[in-house]
């Protein structure tokens, strides 16, 4: 099965550490200004997702969402969630750790695109 979102080992370790601290977590891919175009990591339930959010998959035990309108522009790419040293982004829980989650991307091959089309659109949050 073609995964729409994956996570690197390094990032998964950070998620494990943060989960121990905060409890269950979730991700939402942000767009826009400043700290945007990057995944935001919040305690699960902190950020309400709904019919305008697409569930891309699950990484390191966390559900990963993206806005539906944004998904239309991104759906031809796979997201690989990595982590780098950084100043963090405001409300994302990894900020005080001195690291920042980063979205790397890979364009899907034609075969993968076909497989994903056959699988049907990903579920909405509600």
């Amino acid at each position, binding site marked *: 099965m073609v995964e729409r979102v994956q996570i690197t080992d390094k990032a998964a370790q950070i998620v494990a550490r943060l989960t121990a601290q905060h409890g269950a977590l979730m991700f939402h891919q942000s*767009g*826009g*200004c*400043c*700290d945007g175009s990057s995944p*935001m990591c919040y305690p699960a339930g902190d950020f309400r997702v709904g019919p305008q959010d697409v569930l891309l998959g699950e990484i390191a035990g966390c559900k990963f969402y993206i806005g539906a309108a944004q998904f239309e522009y991104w759906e031809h790419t796979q997201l690989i969630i990595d982590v780098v040293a950084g100043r963090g982004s405001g*409300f*994302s*829980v990894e900020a005080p750790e001195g690291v920042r989650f980063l979205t790397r991307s890979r364009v899907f091959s034609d075969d993968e695109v076909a497989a994903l089309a056959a699988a049907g659109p990903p579920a909405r949050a509600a």
Partner: protein
Amino acid sequence: MFQQALEKVSKQVLIRDRYANFIGGKWVAPVEGRYFDNPSPITGKKLCEIPRSTAADIELALDAAHKAKDAWGKTSVQERSRLLNKVADKLEANLELLALVETLDNGKPIRESTYADMPLVVDHWRYFASVVRAQEGGISEIDHDTVAYHFHEPLGVVGQIIPWNFPILMATWKLAPALAAGNCVVLKPAEQTPLGILVVAELIADILPAGVLNIVNGFGVEAGKPLAQNKRIAKIAFTGETTTGRLIMQYASDNIIPVTLELGGKSPNIFFADVMDADDDYFDKALEGFTMFALNQGEVCTCPSRALVQESIYDKFMERAIARTKKIKQGHPLDATTMIGAQASNDQLEKILSYFDIGKQEGAKALTGGKRAQLEGELAEGYYIEPTIFEGNNKMRVFQEEIFGPVVSVAKFKDENDALAIANDTLYGLGAGVWTRNGNRAYRFGRAIQAGRVWTNCYHAYPAHAAFGGYKASGIGRENHKMMLDHYQQTKNLMVSYSTKALGFF
């Protein structure tokens, strides 16, 4: 150069090794006693330590703000205006120093902080000091016996969370109208650039009454969240990215308070064929307009990060545009001739590099740049990117997402309809640039673009008195204009009856 600048600033303005929060007119250490390092992106090395505040510190700040709010709310408009003007005067007297602090903390070239950021800051305080004097309520004479009197009243205590790309200016855009309107503020600066506003606070500490302005430093998740969710604020204002913008709106709904948001864009800069009708001053200006994607290292919500060039002039225009871009002088941000400085942090740098990667994967062609810039000496560990032009089409991710770096994605268009379709094919609607010698085309096109700010034959101008804000996913509300006083006030309607007779109902 870095060390000299640091020493110069330290002598004239107290740059402390370690800062506290500014609460109730005093410097108050964070309750849990934790701090974080604040490095300069110029060298990657530490500048100072900043409080790592939590909910407890937010509560202290709110205590101080609530203590001050009645008196400040009752202070005459004339007096509030006088104090805001004093703030402007104090900042103007220390302009060069503040510009230097801003460059050290953010990495932007000293040329920009001195000639762009700080003069706009000074003027903004004066603008709101002025317009609040002329604000009027309203009288509606309902009938011979009934008059409705409308008064503007402050909201009370408001929370403001600001970004790191123009630290002192972004603080000013929020503070000036809120304070002019008679509110007290708890401000949470961006953790990436906390220094400038703290130096400002030190300079103006004896101007504003204690508790009117409070600054709590820390991370969004630890200090911003308890502020935005707090039942003791009457409004929350936020500038930053989209998902956190949604989160802030959700928090605001807990307490049913108003929210204003500025969330970014992917602003199209549109060049019609007639710009090349002559190789004159105007065309030269248009080329500068194209190159504006590099202003502030591209770290602007309104970065003209998409350029749409009419097919018929594309090759000739791009030849000149590439040449102009290659002339951008990259160098030490403290050098007065440097045009482009450091990106704000390592993770910003990494994000830009990841976009170079996806751009290439999608088939975008880098006409210039496309990689990290390796600078020498003390800058070797700083965060520098080569100004980059990508060529492609509007469906590519580099055309749809804020890269927040000196990167522009260029596409062709056939005619006006095509240009409009491409310009509006975006989630965002903050800024746009329209370049044409034809006034009618400029007007019709500008009215048709779904963006809050349409620069016409110019770009990146942010004078006070020109309303600024987003359509679509770019946000809610406007800044830089007297209409913002309304954003920070509520209307009290005294409905007065002068009739002495009962109505006959009961």
